[in-house]
C-alpha cells in the first residue's frame, strides 16, 4: 500500500505557505500608538531585537497546516496497491432466486447482478437485454488480479458476441437452471414506397417486383408515385429515384431511422461517408451504404437496367437487397457450457484509491478550527 501523488506539480502550491507567515509577521511590525506621559524614562533601544516573532502561534500553525493540506489536495494524493481481494459473485440475469439460494457462497462474498452498473444482488433483478460478454469483460477488467470470481449463468445465454471471451483470471463457471432462449423476433418484412421522376421510370418495375417479393405476395402492392413528396403511410424503406441532391425532408426522414435507396446519379449529403457493401463477381462496386443519423442511405452505383446491372434479373436479388435494407440480427444466444471463458487476458493494474474526499473532509474540519480560533474572544482586542 503505497501513498503516491498523481500530480506532484500541485505541490508547487506549497509556496502559498508564505501567506499566513507574512500575515502573522506583518502584524508584528504594526505598532499601536500609545499615549505615554513618562516618555522621558523610555530609552530607544539602539539595537532592536531582530528575532523573528509570530503572533498567535496556534492560529498560525493551523493556517499553515490548512494551506499545506490544500496544496496536497491539488497534488491528488492516492493509495496504490490497495487490493480488495474479496471473492466476487456475478449472477447473470435470467437465473432464478432458487438457484442463487442453492449456491453455497462465503460470507464475505460480494454479489452483483451482471447488468449495467452491476447492482447488488439484494436489489431486484434488472430486466432488459444485457450484453453479457461485454459486461463480463468490463467487470473482470475492474477487478484486482487476485480476487476470485464466480459467475452463475443459466444454461442458455443471450448477449454473447463474436469476440473471444478471455478474462484476466480463472473464473469459476457455474451453470444453474435451464434459462430461456431469447425469442426469435419475427421481424415483419420492410414496406417499400417508390418515388421517382420521369428519367427513372424504367427502373421502378424492378423495385416494385422486389417489394412484392419482400411482402411474399399476400400484401398490398408498393406505393409508386411520380412525385417528389414523402409517402403519407408509414414505410420502412423508400426508393428515391431522383437525380441530384437529396431534399432536406428526405434526409430528416432518414435521420429518424428510415432506409432510403437512391440511384447512381443522386448526390449524397456531404456528411455521409459511404462504404461499398456489395460487389459483383469481378469486384466492381454495386451498392454503397452511408449512415445518416439512425437511418441509412443505400446508393445503387449502376442504372436500374438489366443491361447495366445483370444482378437485377437474378432470383436472389430481392432477398439480397433486403439484407442491406434490413440486416438480420447477429446471433447472440449460446449454450453456457460452450461459452466457458478462458483466462490469460492481461489484467488491468488496480486503479489507485483516490484520497481526495478524505483530505477534503480534513480540510473542512481544519477550516472550522481555524475560524473558531480566529474568532474566539481569547484573541486580543481588535487593533
Amino acid at each position, binding site marked *: 500500500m503505497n501513498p503516491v501523488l498523481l500530480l506532484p506539480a500541485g505541490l508547487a502550491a506549497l509556496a502559498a505557505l508564505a501567506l499566513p507567515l507574512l500575515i502573522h509577521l506583518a502584524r508584528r511590525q504594526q505598532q*499601536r500608538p*500609545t499615549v*505615554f*506621559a*513618562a*516618555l522621558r*524614562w*523610555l530609552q530607544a*533601544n539602539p539595537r*532592536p531585537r531582530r528575532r523573528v516573532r509570530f503572533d498567535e502561534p496556534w492560529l498560525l500553525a493551523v493556517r499553515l497546516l490548512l494551506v499545506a493540506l490544500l496544496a496536497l489536495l491539488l497534488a491528488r494524493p492516492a493509495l496504490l496497491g490497495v487490493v480488495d481481494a474479496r471473492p466476487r459473485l456475478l449472477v447473470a440475469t435470467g437465473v432464478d432466486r432458487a438457484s442463487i439460494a442453492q449456491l453455497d457462497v462465503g460470507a464475505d462474498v460480494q454479489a452483483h447482478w451482471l447488468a449495467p452498473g452491476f447492482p447488488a444482488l439484494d436489489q431486484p433483478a434488472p430486466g432488459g437485454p444485457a450484453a453479457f460478454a461485454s459486461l463480463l469483460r468490463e467487470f473482470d477488467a475492474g477487478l484486482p488480479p487476485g480476487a476470485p470470481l464466480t459467475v452463475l449463468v443459466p444454461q442458455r445465454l443471450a448477449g454473447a458476441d463474436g469476440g473471444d471471451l478471455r478474462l484476466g483470471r480463472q473464473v469459476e463457471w457455474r451453470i444453474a437452471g435451464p434459462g430461456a432462449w431469447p425469442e426469435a423476433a419475427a421481424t415483419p418484412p420492410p414496406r417499400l414506397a417508390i418515388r421517382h421522376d420521369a428519367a427513372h421510370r424504367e427502373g421502378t418495375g424492378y423495385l416494385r417486383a422486389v417489394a412484392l417479393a419482400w411482402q411474399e405476395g399476400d400484401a398490398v402492392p408498393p406505393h409508386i408515385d411520380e412525385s417528389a413528396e414523402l409517402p403519407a403511410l408509414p414505410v420502412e424503406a423508400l426508393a428515391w429515384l431522383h437525380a441530384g441532391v437529396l431534399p432536406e425532408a428526405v434526409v430528416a426522414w432518414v435521420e429518424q431511422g428510415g432506409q432510403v435507396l437512391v440511384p447512381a446519379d443522386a448526390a449524397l449529403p456531404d456528411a455521409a461517408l459511404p462504404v461499398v457493401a456489395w460487389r459483383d463477381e469481378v469486384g466492381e462496386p454495386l451498392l454503397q451504404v452511408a449512415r445518416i443519423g439512425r437511418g441509412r442511405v443505400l446508393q445503387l452505383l449502376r442504372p436500374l437496367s438489366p443491361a447495366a446491372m445483370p444482378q437485377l434479373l437474378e432470383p436472389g436479388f430481392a432477398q439480397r437487397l433486403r439484407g442491406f435494407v434490413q440486416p438480420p440480427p447477429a446471433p447472440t444466444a449460446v449454450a453456457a457450457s460452450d461459452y466457458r471463458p478462458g483466462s490469460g487476458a492481461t489484467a488491468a493494474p488496480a486503479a489507485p484509491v483516490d484520497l481526495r474526499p478524505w483530505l477534503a473532509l480534513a480540510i473542512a474540519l481544519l477550516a472550522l478550527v481555524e475560524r473558531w480560533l480566529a474568532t474566539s474572544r481569547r484573541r486580543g482586542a481588535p487593533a
Partner: protein
Amino acid sequence: MAWDPVTPGLRAQLRGLRIASRRSSALRGGGQHRSRDKGVGLEFSQYRSYEPGDEPRRIDWKLYARSDRFFVREAERDSPIAVWIVVDASASMGQADESRPDWSRLDAARALAACVAELALRQGDRAGLVALREDALAFVPAAGGRRQRERLLFELERLRAQGGVVDETRLRPLWERIAPDDLVIVLGDFLDPATATLATRLAAARREVVALQLLTVAERDFPFGDGRRFIDPETGEALPGDARALRGQFLARFGQAQRALHARLGEAGIRHAVHVLDEPLPQPLRVLFGAAPGSDAA
C-alpha cells in the same frame, strides 16, 4: 446636583479622616491662637434657643430683655487654615490605562479633590481650588460652607486635561492667594519637574504642602508586550519600539526617578503619597490624613 464623584460609599470610607495641618496644630497649642479666636474671628451667624449646657455668658441678655426667652448667639469662627487643592491639568493628566480607558489620571484627581474638599468643608475649614493649566490658572477662592462645595464641584467638572505644564511666570496669582500656613494639596503626576519645583517652593515659603502623585498602571507595570509607538501627550514626541525590549530598562529608570522625587519631596518636608489608578480611591487619603498628628478639634 449633577456631577458628584463622592458617592455615598466613598463618603462612608472617608469617615474618620481628618485634614490636619501639622503647622497650625503646632500653633494651636499656644495661647496666641486662642486669643485670636475670641477677637475679630467671631462673626455673627444666627440665634438659637438656649439649651441646657450652654455657657451662660453666651446668652444674649438684651434679647432676653426684649423677648423674655433665652437665646444664644452663635458665631461662625474663622478657621485658622485654608485648604488649597492644586490640580495639575496638563495633557499628561488625560492618560488612562488600556484596561480602563474611561478612568484617566484627571478623573482620579477630580475625585480625590472632591473628597478633600468634602473633608475640609465638613470639618469647618475653608477650601479653595487652583487648576494648573498652561493658558490660565482656574481659581476658586477659599471659602467655607455648602455653597462652596458646589462651586468647587462645578469647577472640577469643567476641568479638562490639555496643554503643557504651566509657566513659572503665570503662577503669581497663586502666591498672592495662598497665604502662609495654608494647607496646599498638590494633585498631579509629578512627571514634569515643574510640579515638584512648585511644591518645594511652596513648602519653602512656609506653606504646608501635601503631594499626591497619580500614576497609571502602565507606569508602574509597563504591561505592554507588542510593538508600540509611544507618544508623549504634551510634546507630541513619539518613540517607536518593541515594548518587551524596552520594559526592563524603563522600569529601572522610572523607579530611580521616583525614588529621587520622593527623596526631594521628603527633604522639603512635604508629605507625599502615590496613587496608582487601579487602587481604591481613598487609599492615599488614608495614608496622608488617617493618622492625624494633632487630635484636638476646634
